[in-house]
């Protein structure tokens, strides 16, 4: 109990990284629902900057779940903004889809926050000034990118997850993201092959994309981390993940 009070004090006083260490210690004491390991607290000393310092998601399973949490925070924030003022000319069908997705992403976000407990990264802040929320095409194109990115991120992280329960959890979420991706793609290009288009599903193998957080290739000059950071005022890194 004393320890907990100290952690709370530290939490309100010190910088993010220290906060996270303390949090993790607290987590070990009280136990969280998922009983996440402490592997995330090993390397937190690089790159300190005074304000808005980069938040590293950590390593191991905790790192992967925190990375997912960061992406879910991003998606939730985006759709909340979309729903706050729908683009003009929106149809009832589109409204329903965008409302549903907002609620799903928010549920994902809230789940990760609770499951990670004291091991969770902080609440991120966003800058969506690059998106014209009054424009249908801009909104749906951004949504498409976020959903496809989410799918490939979960797919790519899967094999680095050590705990089978976390893996199944990731599986439970990724298919919902893929359902979103298909619906959004169909809104952009109705009644075409785009919902599972050749740009995301390999035509020979029938496999969707999978990408690790920092991976770049010819088709993706920007990593998932870098892409997420274009919408973040508090940047994230995944230095302990591939």
């Amino acid at each position: 109990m004393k320890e907990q009070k100290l952690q709370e004090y530290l939490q309100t006083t010190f910088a993010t990284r220290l906060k996270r260490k303390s949090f993790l210690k607290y987590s070990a004491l009280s136990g969280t629902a998922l009983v996440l390991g402490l592997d995330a607290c090993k390397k937190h000393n690089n790159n300190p900057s005074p304000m808005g310092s980069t938040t590293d998601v950590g390593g191991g399973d905790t790192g992967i779940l925190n990375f997912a949490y960061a992406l879910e925070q991003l998606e939730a924030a985006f759709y909340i903004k979309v729903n706050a003022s729908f683009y003009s000319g929106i149809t009832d069908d589109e409204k329903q889809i965008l409302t549903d997705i907002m609620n799903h992403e928010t549920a994902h976000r809230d789940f990760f926050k609770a499951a990670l407990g004291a091991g969770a990264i902080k609440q991120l802040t966003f800058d969506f000034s690059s998106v014209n929320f009054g424009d249908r095409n801009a909104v749906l194109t951004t949504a498409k990118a976020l959903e496809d990115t989410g799918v490939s991120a979960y797919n790519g992280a899967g094999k680095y997850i050590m705990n089978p329960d976390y893996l199944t959890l990731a599986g439970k979420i990724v298919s919902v993201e893929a359902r979103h991706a298909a619906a959004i793609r169909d809104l952009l290009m109705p009644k075409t092959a785009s919902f599972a288009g050749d740009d995301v599903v390999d035509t020979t193998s029938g496999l969707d994309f999978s990408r690790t957080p920092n991976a770049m290739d010819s088709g993706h000059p920007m990593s998932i981390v870098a892409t997420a950071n274009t919408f973040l005022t508090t940047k994230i890194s995944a230095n302990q993940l591939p």
Partner: protein
Amino acid sequence: MKAVKIIETLDTEINDLAFSRRQALNKGLNLGLKGLFAAIPLGLLFKPTKTYAATSSPVDVLNFALKLEYLESSFYTMGLNAGIVPSSDMAIISQISKHETAHVATLKSAITASGGTPVPEPQFDFTAGGTFSDVFTNYTTFLVLANAFEDTGVRAYKGQAANLLGSDLLTAALDIHSVEARHASEIRRLRGQKGWISGNMTAGLPAAIYAGEDNTTQGGVDVTTVSTISAAYIMESFDEPLTMDQVLAIAGPFIKS
């Protein structure tokens, strides 16, 4: 040998029983699609095939997946050949068909590369013994089954992920899994449904396909207690896995051999 005989006898009896109940349901109770499978205990529909015991090595998992992909691939090929797909939906159904055929090839190579032998393609009866007799003459029925196969496929892959923990085979399985989810979303929307699964709402499909989808507890967390989002949305937010046995119980009526 004795054991095999007993199993075969049981198999026959179980199938006869299932069949007679099915007939009874069709004739007497007229429950339609919704009630059909719901009313029959899963164990009776499940044909205990010898290939899939309780073990689940990576090759077993891939062969299980291959069987489902054979089913889907064959289903879409037959639907396209039957000429029932309206031109407005042709791009969609063709794309799905292309993927399912590719999945068969991908899984076969993965199984061989893993030192296993791909199971041969079973014979299918997409009417499920006459229950869906118009599957290739009525596009609505075709979409009902497409929906059933896609949502079941998503749950099937999810249920096997943990058996492929930490391997490249897992990545391949996940990369198929999300494609099936894209398909499921699209097919559901063609049917006027949401792209995502709402609780255990069956939308005219056998209840077994959506059993457990109304779960709100994830990773030990009752999500309703940590989120202001409604339970209905939380149920939609997480797709649930099915075990191999559950999946085979659903697919069983469509597999002749």
